[in-house]
């Protein structure tokens, strides 16, 4: 019945992109192994470490600091896992090959995954913001919220590039493990779980090697927390990581397609 109602639509590239993006989002939302950790872990950690066991001494404001850094931790996941695992599976199972053979507009594949990652990022931002303003007791000026939102939405880009690169190189069954081995240590070493100032000096020194560190600093800057380095340098570093991993992904996709 529904099928009759949607028959013979006008041909439009925009509709094609929209459907592609919608289905990419639905596909991952319906996969519990992706959706549950991605949407649940950031607010759960925030509740545990910023609300229940918050260290309320000194000038460290756990509620605001962790809002920024768990936000970054949260938005990394749709980029890394959303791209990494789904690209690896699509490649391995022949779905990517079929899509290349079909007359799909060439940009639709990546654009749909990017839209999916940004939509998940926006959801994670909204959930954390809700927790922070209610149980977290955080108050921030509107401009800070807007800045944080844009940092997190566009912050998914370098992680999409890294995910794409991993997905282009590794099998679908190995990808989740490999991504976790990158995701979790990088989050810790970038000061997303606890401030870098309380971590050993060597961790602080090598932090600029991690894309998550630069995004973390931008997010902390957005909510008025102390940061190290200039915002422009962090943006440039993230752009550099994005370009580098896109180039690596392109090479791997051509080789493994």
């Amino acid at each position: 019945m529904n099928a009759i109602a949607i028959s013979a639509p006008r041909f439009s590239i925009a509709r094609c992109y929209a459907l592609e993006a919608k289905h990419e989002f639905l596909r991952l939302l319906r996969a519990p192994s992706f959706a549950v950790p991605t949407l649940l872990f950031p607010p759960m950690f925030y509740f545990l470490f910023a609300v229940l066991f918050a260290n309320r001494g000194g000038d460290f404001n756990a509620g605001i600091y962790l809002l920024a850094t768990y936000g970054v931790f949260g938005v990394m996941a749709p980029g890394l896992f959303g791209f990494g695992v789904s690209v690896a599976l699509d490649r391995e199972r022949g779905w990517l090959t079929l899509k290349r053979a079909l007359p799909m507009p060439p940009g639709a594949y990546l654009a749909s995954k990017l839209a999916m990652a940004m939509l998940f990022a926006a959801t994670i931002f909204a959930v954390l913001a809700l927790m922070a303003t209610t149980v977290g007791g955080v108050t921030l000026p509107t401009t800070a919220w807007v800045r944080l939102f844009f940092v997190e939405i566009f912050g998914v880009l370098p992680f999409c590039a890294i995910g794409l690169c991993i997905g282009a190189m590794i099998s679908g069954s190995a990808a989740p493990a490999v991504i976790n081995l990158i995701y979790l240590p990088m989050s810790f070493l970038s000061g997303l779980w606890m401030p870098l100032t309380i971590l050993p000096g060597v961790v602080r020194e090598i932090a600029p090697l991690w894309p998550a560190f630069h995004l973390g600093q931008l997010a902390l800057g957005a909510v008025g927390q102390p940061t190290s380095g200039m915002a422009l340098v962090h943006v440039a570093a993230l752009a550099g990581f994005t370009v580098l991993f896109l180039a690596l992904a392109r090479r791997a996709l051509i080789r493994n397609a």
Partner: protein
Amino acid sequence: MIDAKNTCCARLLAAGKRYGNIAALDGIDLDVRAGELLALLGPNGAGKSTAVSLLLGLTEADAGEVQLFGQSPHALAARRRVGVMLQSAGMPDTLKVRELLAQTRSYYPDPLDAAECARIAGIADLLDRRYGKLSGGQQRRVQFALAICGKPELLFLDEPTTGLDVEARQALWSATRALVAAGSAVLLTTHYLEEAEALADRVAVLARGKLVAEGSVRQIRARVAQRRIRCVSALKPETIGAWPEVRSVWRDGDRIEIVTDSAEMVVRQLLFEDSALCELEVQRAGLAEAFVEITREAA
């Protein structure tokens, strides 16, 4: 000349493709003409998949030319006239059949009505199921639906009935016949020779990257003089096997089966040696025997 170009959907011209120092395709010429079903046959590694990949723009030829409706296969306009069912196309498990169909239909300017498409492919009752929950045969039917949903002028079917039961295979065959009758061309690659025999207007046989035979099913069969004799007889296979005209012989229960180039001679000898012989049958070689013979010659 102009006419031939107009009626040619897909063409390989002296197309070659090497992987390392192995020639997957060694300069072959192949045309798929409008409205015909061309079956591309060949043993594993003969170059069938490479030929399909070239025509769909999935791989680049290192030599010769590849055309899809007179254009490069990379041209979106050319591929909008094509439908594709590949050997392995595992779609996202969590998407519903309805969604997969809507998405693929959106790639085409004038797609088939979704309900009509589902009916032809026999998936009308599966539209709200998730792809990952379907059986292998149901998944193949969904893949077939996606292949035909754009009203293709040329349909690529790469081993379409692998994993289908007899009934589903027959249904896919009759849907394919209906499409050809309505004017679509089909390039079919298959392991099942009876599939080619049942469907093909024309057959092209590949072996080791070369085109070794091309023609109608009847022409290909006629290239092989072999015939098959079956009978119930007490004669020992070893005895029959020693006759000069006999290529091979084997016993299946009380039946004997003989392959020979000279059926008349062998039948005369059989009747002479065993007066109790009964249930005599003589058959011209099918495509299967012809195929074995042709690819053996090419080796």
